[in-house]
């Protein structure tokens, strides 16, 4: 079955430390790939997306993600985490343009001072 997996439900990092959130997908073809963030009391905000081309994608708020076809992964990274990055992060895929998004279960990030 087609699916999106975020293996880490919770992650805690210290402010200033680097961050990597994992995302794996299971699809026959390469889907469109997204990372969204939901801060407390807010809606889902798009951080970045991959459709094609360069496999390293830059997003907002200093985030980047790398698409690795061989590993069916699209991990999100940030070199130095800020306290305001504490939120829940969702990886999502879109199999065909204009279709629904399929989400992973989310990773809740906590940032220690």
């Amino acid at each position, binding site marked *: 079955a087609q699916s999106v997996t975020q293996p880490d439900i919770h992650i805690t990092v210290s402010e200033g430390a680097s961050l990597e959130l994992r995302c794996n997908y299971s699809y026959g073809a390469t889907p469109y790939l997204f990372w969204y963030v939901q801060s407390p009391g807010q*809606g889902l*905000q*798009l951080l970045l997306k991959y459709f094609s081309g360069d496999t390293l994608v830059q997003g907002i708020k200093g985030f980047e993600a790398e698409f690795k076809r061989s590993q069916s992964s699209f991990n999100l990274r940030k070199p130095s985490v800020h306290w305001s990055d504490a939120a829940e992060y*969702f990886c999502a895929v879109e199999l065909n343009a204009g279709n629904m998004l399929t*989400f992973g279960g989310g990773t809740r990030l906590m940032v220690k001072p």
Partner: protein
Amino acid sequence: EAGVTQFPSHSVIEKGQTVTLRCDPISGHDNLYWYRRVMGKEIKFLLHFVKESKQDESGMPNNRFLAERTGGTYSTLKVQPAELEDSGVYFCASSQGPGSTQYFGPGTRLTVL
């Protein structure tokens, strides 16, 4: 430019009652999507409108849920009668067309007692 708005932000109802959720997409966006996140689970697709037509309603859980988008502008999602398992956060998203980003609203938190 105004984002996607949803009303109400919270709703608490008793089992058996009816609730109607509203979504106003970004102006000019023909595509409108409804998603739901029940407690502890991933965000799941419910249905997709293109203008006033239902493009895909494969995610609607049962016939207690009715979505409309008269005139191709705002959309409503009615739950009648509500059951305990309908509790969760209902998200609406809109996009301009195939391949374009889905922008999400803040969600409506529904609690069925």
